[in-house]
């Protein structure tokens, strides 16, 4: 069995809680080294997971004998590290967002395309069983023609360097692209601010070419809530009913207006088999699943769905939404300048 040797650049919370445990659980993966500019974090992670090889410079980490690199640093540093890895012909798995600047993201995408190096961005929602199932149902017209896709997501935390839309919203912009899978026509966004002029919410309306339905993504920052109270859901409204699911709870609720059963009893709720056989949290499962997909793509020379282009597009939608809200305009043709 071929093994992939990984370097993990950035040993913060996401590496500690998701990437390193996931790699340790995947038989085809070997963690060769870890890297961080923060020595305290580096030593802590090294001791916790007994990883002896450690670097403080990402170039040393990438130049050691590895097959792939995971970039889990703060988002502004993603592009520089990714471009260096691509230059050294090392495939890259990077945490979302791809980076915070559209220009940098474009450079990463173009460099990976030019050198044909695999770059995958960690948008794990598209690998979750419930979202995959709902996409299948939409494609099979289970509820007829779709009228509306509505995503509502609340969060307690936003990274200081990033905004609500770039840090958090990109998850759902990527999920929207996963569901609709068409060229974007226009983006319009409106902000909601509190008394201190802090952005606490954003409503983004996205329209796709050759797509009759409207997509609305609402993101809210609710720092005073508990995680158990936040609402993160996806709802499709269709000609013959509606379907909804949660972001991290893999239940699907389906209402079919043509069904006598549903008229009498109400919607039915069920869980896809893939989700029900998982004995870990759905979030952990999704993190591991995306790394399995990345490793499978490396071993079998496959493409991945959440590639550098997807990462770039999620960022471009977030950027377009920011510009739209600032200037109160509809932003069009955001895919044309690539």
């Amino acid at each position, binding site marked *: 069995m071929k093994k992939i040797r990984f370097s993990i650049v950035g040993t913060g919370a996401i590496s500690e809680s998701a990437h390193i445990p996931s790699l340790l659980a995947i038989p085809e993966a070997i963690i060769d080294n870890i890297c961080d500019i923060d020595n305290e974090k580096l030593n802590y992670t090294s001791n916790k997971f007994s990883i002896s090889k450690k670097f403080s410079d990402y170039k040393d980490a990438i130049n050691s004998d590895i097959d792939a690199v995971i970039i889990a640093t703060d988002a502004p540093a993603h592009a520089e590290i990714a471009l260096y890895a691509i230059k050294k012909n090392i495939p890259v798995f990077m945490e979302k967002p791809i980076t915070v600047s559209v220009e940098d993201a474009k450079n990463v995408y173009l460099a990976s395309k030019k050198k044909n190096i695999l770059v995958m961005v960690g948008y794990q929602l598209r690998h979750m069983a419930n979202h995959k199932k709902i996409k299948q149902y939409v494609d099979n017209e289970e509820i007829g023609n779709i009228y509306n896709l509505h995503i509502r997501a609340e969060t307690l935390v936003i990274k200081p360097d990033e905004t609500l839309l770039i840090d958090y919203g990109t998850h759902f912009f990527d999920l929207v692209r996963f569901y609709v899978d068409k060229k974007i026509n226009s983006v319009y966004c409106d902000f909601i601010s509190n008394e201190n002029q802090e952005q606490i919410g954003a409503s983004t309306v996205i329209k796709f070419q050759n797509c009759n339905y409207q997509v609305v993504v609402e993101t809210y920052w609710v720092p005073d809530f508990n995680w158990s109270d936040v609402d993160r859901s996806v709802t499709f409204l269709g000609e013959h009913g509606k379907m909804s699911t949660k972001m991290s709870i893999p239940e699907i609720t389906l209402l079919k207006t043509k069904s006598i059963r549903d008229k009498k009893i109400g919607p*039915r709720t069920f*869980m896809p*088999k893939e989700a*029900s056989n998982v004995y870990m949290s759905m979030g952990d499962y999704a993190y591991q699943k995306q790394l399995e997909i990345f490793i499978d793509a490396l071993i079998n020379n496959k493409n991945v769905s959440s590639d550098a282009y997807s990462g770039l597009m999620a960022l471009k939608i977030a950027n377009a939404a920011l510009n739209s809200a600032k200037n109160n305009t509809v932003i069009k043709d955001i895919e044309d300048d690539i």
Partner: protein
Amino acid sequence: MISNYISTVNSNYENLIQKSLEDILNSEVIGKKSRVVVLVDFSAGHRSLESGVMVDPNLIFNIIDKINKKFNPKNVYIGASENNFDLNDLFERLGYYSYAKLNRNVEIINFSKTEEVKYLNESNKSVLKIASIPELLALSDYVVLFSTLKRNVYERYSGCSYSLANFLLNPSFKEDALAFSKDTIYDLYEYAKPGLSILDARYSLEKLGPIQGDVKKTDFILIGTNPLIVDKHACNIIGEKIEKVIHLKKLIKKYKLPEVENKNFVTLKNINRVEYFFFRVSKLFKKIKLYMRNISTLFYLATLAIVSIGGRDLLAGRWMSFSGYYKIIKTILFKLEEDGNLLEWKITINKHVKEETLS
């Protein structure tokens, strides 16, 4: 909608079916793009195919033809879930595949080999309690349920509502769910909610076991929009008190059935019956088999007790955990409830010797 029943003695079979389906065929309950799921009950007599009854395939085809003619749904899936028999072989032998070849929208499905989902509902959110059902059921627009009539030690009466358990895909879960708790039946009733329930009780099955049994002529078919009303009515026909059929009693209490007029049932006579008798072993052989089984059960229980309690622990005066005791009790109860068990030993043998009729 109030249920209809086949209600005429000595009448033409075709007309009876047509009459019983009048209300359904005159309403727009099934859309043109809809997905109809038809559940067939093979449970009676399936374990060893020694003996048994099944729903008459021609009755199924007849009713699907009528639904097709009136509504022309996009898909009709006729299916059953696997147990200890070769489902494909049964479908082949009973003509299901031939029927599907003649009807483009009809597909014969082994539910156990299709995508499965876990059902969830308000009363059953626990991960331990969720059960696998076919994804087709979760996506269905209309469910048609065919059932046979059985009486056994588990249930004094088992018909349409109990046959909903055939949607469960995990055999061990199904066994547990039916033996220890009837919640699953209530949940399935709520989840599947058949639009049409047919009890083909021209021949019925009676024995101690849940599936094998002696075939009895009962000579009736009931068709209704509500499986509970059909079951309630069937109980009336065979002289069983609903109060004594636990799952039915609870279901009826929970879902508050509309009142049904008593005149709506009579037995069928002089129609072309379809019987499915399989090879049946002699009564002497059955007797020997039961003796052997009882002896092996005794050994099994004794070994289980010694192994579970543990000689060393017993001598050392140590106690097992509660779950240990629970496991032993559960296993012993299960053994005792099996067909031909120790408690029912005499009764079992008598039943084989003595011919009895239902009710």
